[in-house]
């Protein structure tokens, strides 16, 4: 790793952690309904939305109504995106004259964007019109992220309220997340991205001349190149900030028009973790003890940093098979070196590994390098990051509500060990909460492993594999891990656009998003009903390093116990194969 790569990763943590408190504080004020500085500009719009859609701002919902509203709103999103894709040929803003999307692919894409997964079995520039991308996908980028944030805030209300039936109003939480947080941040981000060369226009693709003519696969001479354009920057800003990850172009943030410079790369990878990290502070602020938020952020970092180190190391070492044939993979001032297959020169190996770790820690799933071509260990990190349940940062809102569930598990297990009734933030954790928490923790692994088992048993599943040996198994496991944890990144060579995988992965995304939201809201409702139990001498403090280790330990334990056998069959064997020939 050369000096600039070290400094870039160091600066990444400095800026990320530096922004946690100011942004977290701002978001806490937004959710608490206190003045936040943008009220004069956004307040009138917000009130108009409520008036037109019949929302009474002070109306409170029980957890069942809240959950019902969440599901109805999301189901509606799926239907709209599906219909847009099926009818885009008759709709405006389609300068490339693209036709209707096939039903199975349209279903997969609709579920994918509504569930904040943004798995993409298609290539944007050749499949979706500008209209579909904007009206369908960009909108879902906002509201699926806002849904995750709303559910988190409902859970926090469950922890802070006492002896009440209600946990807030879904419409208000959704609207305020979108208007006060996601929209202003995205606007600023989009403009900065444009300044770096990310395209933003409604013009169709343009032709440029080739300096040296090329020959295509059929032997014909090619003298021009068609540069794709479109309103990309506005979608990319929210794709990163909302941990969506769906690219405007097929190769996502590896595309030079989607991620044009090292600076745009740094800002995008920062945006991937920004809101998820800052929400930890928001949580601490709203429960009246910022240390609680810092503790959960620390638990995330305790897992994130070592994983990052392994991934960067593995990618920077490079591919031993290439060293055998006189290739220079060393890192120095003249080149990034490392495993450069499937990576871009302007980013280099280290910044690509940083991105891979961040995008899978958060349930973002955008890529700036091709994970399929990562070294076995470099690819194991993003795979395992997703399998840990997307709670290390995770999706905006969804990551933190997932980690709070792990915190509840941690106090429960710690309580069992010392024989005390477990409490979290003054709320007793009892059988009902534990049942719901177990659902949240166990459903994604079930979907991932069950889905992988189905896919590898069927010819139609194995047919999508494009690399030989254990890597082929890893491709399938990666796809299911990605869909089953709402991440959306892929081993890009995998032939995902088949009716079989469009349906299987679509189902996986649906189950793991909405089957988790319901038990989380059930816990919120149950906690809100309880009275406050003041801490006693036997209460486990939940802001200490000990608790940080306990929570991180819970996450790693569940993740390791569940997935080590599957990982051993894929990346571990592949690593041994790669190094054994030496």
């Amino acid at each position, binding site marked *: 790793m050369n000096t600039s790569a070290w400094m870039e990763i160091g600066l990444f943590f400095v800026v990320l952690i530096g922004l946690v408190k100011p942004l977290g504080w701002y978001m806490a004020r937004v959710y608490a309904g206190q003045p936040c500085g943008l009220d004069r500009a956004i307040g009138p719009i917000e009130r108009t939305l409520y008036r037109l859609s019949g929302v009474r701002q002070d109306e409170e919902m029980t957890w069942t109504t809240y959950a019902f509203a969440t599901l109805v709103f999301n189901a509606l999103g799926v239907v709209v995106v599906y219909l847009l894709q099926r009818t885009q040929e008759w709709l405006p803003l389609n300068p490339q004259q693209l036709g209707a999307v096939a039903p199975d692919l349209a279903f997969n894409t609709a579920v994918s964007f509504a569930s904040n997964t943004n798995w993409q079995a298609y290539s944007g520039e050749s499949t979706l019109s500008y209209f579909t991308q904007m009206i369908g996908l*960009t909108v879902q980028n906002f509201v699926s992220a806002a849904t995750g944030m709303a559910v988190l805030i409902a859970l926090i209300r469950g922890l802070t309220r006492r002896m009440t039936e209600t946990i807030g109003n879904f419409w208000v939480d959704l609207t305020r997340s979108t208007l006060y947080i996601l929209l202003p941040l995205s606007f600023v981000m*989009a403009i900065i991205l444009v300044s770096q060369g990310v*395209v933003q226009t409604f013009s169709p693709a343009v032709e440029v001349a080739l300096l040296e003519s090329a020959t295509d696969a059929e032997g014909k001479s090619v*003298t021009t190149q068609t540069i794709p354009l479109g309103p990309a920057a506005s979608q990319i800003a929210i794709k990163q900030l909302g941990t969506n990850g769906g690219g405007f172009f097929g190769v996502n943030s590896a595309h030079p028009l989607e991620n044009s410079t090292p600076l745009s790369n740094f800002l995008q990878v920062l945006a991937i973790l920004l809101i998820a990290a800052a929400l930890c502070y928001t949580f601490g602020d709203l429960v009246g003890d910022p240390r609680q938020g810092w503790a959960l952020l620390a638990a995330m970092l305790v897992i994130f940093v070592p994983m990052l180190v392994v991934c960067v190391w593995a990618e920077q070492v490079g591919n031993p098979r290439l060293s055998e044939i006189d290739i220079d993979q060393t890192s120095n001032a003249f080149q990034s070196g490392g495993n450069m297959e499937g990576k871009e020169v302007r980013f280099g190996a280290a910044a690509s590994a940083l991105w891979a770790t961040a995008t899978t820690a958060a349930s973002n799933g955008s890529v700036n390098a091709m994970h399929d071509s990562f070294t076995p260990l470099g690819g194991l990190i993003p795979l395992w990051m997703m399998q840990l349940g997307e709670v290390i940062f995770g999706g905006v809102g969804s990551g933190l509500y997932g980690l709070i569930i792990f915190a509840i598990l941690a106090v429960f297990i710690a309580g069992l060990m010392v024989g005390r009734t477990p409490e979290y933030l003054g709320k007793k954790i009892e059988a009902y909460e534990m049942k719901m928490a177990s659902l949240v923790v166990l459903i994604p692994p079930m979907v991932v492993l069950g889905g992988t088992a189905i896919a590898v048993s069927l010819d139609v599943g194995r047919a999508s594999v494009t690399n030989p040996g254990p890597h082929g198994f890893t491709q399938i496991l990666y796809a299911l891990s990605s869909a089953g944890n709402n991440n959306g990144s892929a081993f890009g060579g995998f032939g995902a656009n088949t009716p079989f995988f469009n349906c299987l992965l679509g189902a996986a995304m649906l189950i793991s998003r909405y089957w988790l939201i319901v038990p989380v809201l059930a816990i919120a409702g149950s906690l809100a009903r309880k009275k406050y139990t003041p801490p006693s001498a036997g209460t486990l403090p939940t802001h200490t390093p000990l608790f940080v280790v306990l929570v991180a330990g819970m996450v790693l334990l569940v993740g390791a116990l569940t997935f080590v056998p599957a990982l051993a069959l894929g990346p571990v064997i592949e690593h041994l194969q790669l190094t054994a020939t030496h």
Partner: protein
Amino acid sequence: MFQILRTAITLLALLTVITGVAYPFAVTAVAQIGFPKAANGSLFEKPLGAGNSSVHSNARDWRSATDQPPKWAGSELIGQPFSDPKYFWGRPSATAPVAYNSMGGSGSNQATTNPALVDAVRERVAKLRQEDPDNLAKVPVDLVTSSASGLDPHISEAAALYQVGRVARLRKIEPYTLNKLVLSHLERPTIGIFGQTRVNVLKLNLALDAKAEEVSKLVIPAPQ
């Protein structure tokens, strides 16, 4: 129940107007006014006086497509395919059906353990060695591995310097002059931190054509 459905429909419609219409149009307006070149693909026209010489035998064969050559000479951000040894080569591209097909960006997605990857790299090395038999240095990795997008406009400084000997010989330019040309095209990490030192291959090759022309004019006929 009905009330919730009605609210969901209205709110989704209104949020669509704000985030799906107003937001992208507002960004587009600011982008087109503030950064017109960057927002439209960073296209550039051919610099005046540069490279009218047809170094490549079949360069500029417009008969097949239209009679009018496109106005633009390229995008600063999108790489172009080069296979003539008189040019600096960029990174291998995995796009189909032609390399650097910018309407279908793609990586090879070959695993590190895939024998096809090692074979492809070996073939690329052989081709470099064949065109430049005297160069015994190890080949910089980015010059023989395909990029993530298939459109990578850059190669590393090492990969550019590796090719100087070959290009200098074929162009009859002093290697020293060519080295200077490469160094003047280096893009260094932003404020010394972000990214890697790199060279834009298309811009370098355009400058190379201009330099070759300039040098050819300077050649004084040998005395009789």
